[in-house]
């Protein structure tokens, strides 16, 4: 899996650096879009997956759903963090500022805080089963809140580009980038779910031997 991930990253890196055409006004800084857009999409999708699998856990009480929920939250947190970092770098080149309270930026920031709260909850609780239930509740509440955060922030005028026109070559490059990151996202998700499963098994064996 490590080989597959490395190969994916190399393909994406080479394609973005050498084959994607350079944008007329932004120059090379525009290339960050090929990383920023997939990260933002996956950050959002991962949070929805966290909430859906959280709801499935509450319904079935099968630990499997909790592993998926937690793995998705962790991968999603990474994607959202990278979205904010890459967006900031782009913003510095395009707007001459690292951060502005634009509606989209604010939405992603709030989602990042809720996702961070979800991850912190685990370290702040002793009972594993209770922790799984509480995290599922937080994920559902966060997912319910998301459309309202989007609405509240969108009604202010923002400066973030919305679906800008791109030449066909750039569009293809963006699709390649999304495909590559889908594979990486999938690999990370599966691997992390495996880690959580094993960690839980070890904890159970330790409990039995004690």
């Amino acid at each position: 899996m490590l080989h597959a991930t490395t190969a994916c990253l190399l393909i994406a890196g080479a394609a973005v650096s050498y084959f994607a055409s350079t944008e007329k006004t932004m120059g090379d800084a525009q290339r960050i879009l090929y990383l920023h857009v997939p990260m933002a999409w996956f950050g959002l999708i991962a949070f929805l997956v966290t909430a859906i699998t959280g709801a499935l856990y509450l319904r079935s009480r099968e630990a499997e759903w909790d592993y998926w929920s937690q793995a998705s939250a962790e991968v999603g947190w990474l994607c959202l963090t990278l979205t904010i970092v890459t967006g900031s770098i782009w913003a510095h080149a395009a707007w001459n500022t690292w951060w502005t309270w634009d509606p989209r930026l604010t939405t992603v920031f709030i989602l990042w805080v809720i996702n961070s709260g979800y991850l912190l909850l685990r370290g702040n609780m002793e009972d594993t089963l209770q922790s799984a239930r509480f995290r599922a509740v937080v994920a559902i509440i966060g997912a319910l809140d998301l459309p309202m955060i989007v609405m509240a922030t969108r009604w202010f005028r923002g400066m973030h580009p919305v679906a800008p026109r791109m030449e066909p070559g750039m569009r293809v490059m963006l699709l390649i980038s999304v495909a590559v990151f889908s594979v990486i996202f999938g690999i990370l998700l599966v691997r992390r779910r495996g880690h959580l499963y094993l960690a839980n098994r070890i904890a159970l064996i330790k409990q039995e031997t004690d």
Partner: protein
Amino acid sequence: MVQKDLVSELRTGLVWPPMCLFGLLVAAVFSFQMELLADQRIQIAGGLLWLATVFAGMLVLDRTFAAEREEGCWHAMKLYPVSATMIYFAKFAVNVITLAIIQLILIALFVFVADIPLFKHPWAMLSVAVLGNLGIASAGTILSALGLGIRGNSGLLSLLILAVVIPVVIAAAEATRLICTDDLGDMWRRWIHLLVVFVLVFISAGAALIDFIVEE
């Protein structure tokens, strides 16, 4: 249950006095920092009012279930022949009453001391105040129930509550600003709709999800 919580607060005075003082302090600090002309003050008064309300409210929301846990009352309470949903609504009602007290104090302060025309349209202001209150209380009550399992006082609850109620703060602040500037048009109605949707979604979610939090 509502009566129990209110009587307990009236006898001990653990939450309301610090909450009121904290609300006053937040409002005072904000206004000291912003020596503005009357027109500019009106533009930002909505935001200040709702930020002071939500910060003071955090002190209350944080404590919604904490007293039950600390005093060992929680297990006795679960023996009541009522559903978890009823417990949610009782706690929600207490939070609504408590937030209304801080709102009354802050609104009076803004109107009479800072001369902000919040009552230019009294019914509109009343609806924003009620919806904002219900929004903060509904989301705050369900999230504060997580305190039943969280170790110590890590501040994590406050962080989660603040992040989730941000749409309410933005919508209520904007609706209040539009009231002060005499603009009860389309945009004002949109903010009110958002508040109504938030309140309905979070009351329903709270009533549905509380079962999963309180179960052993």
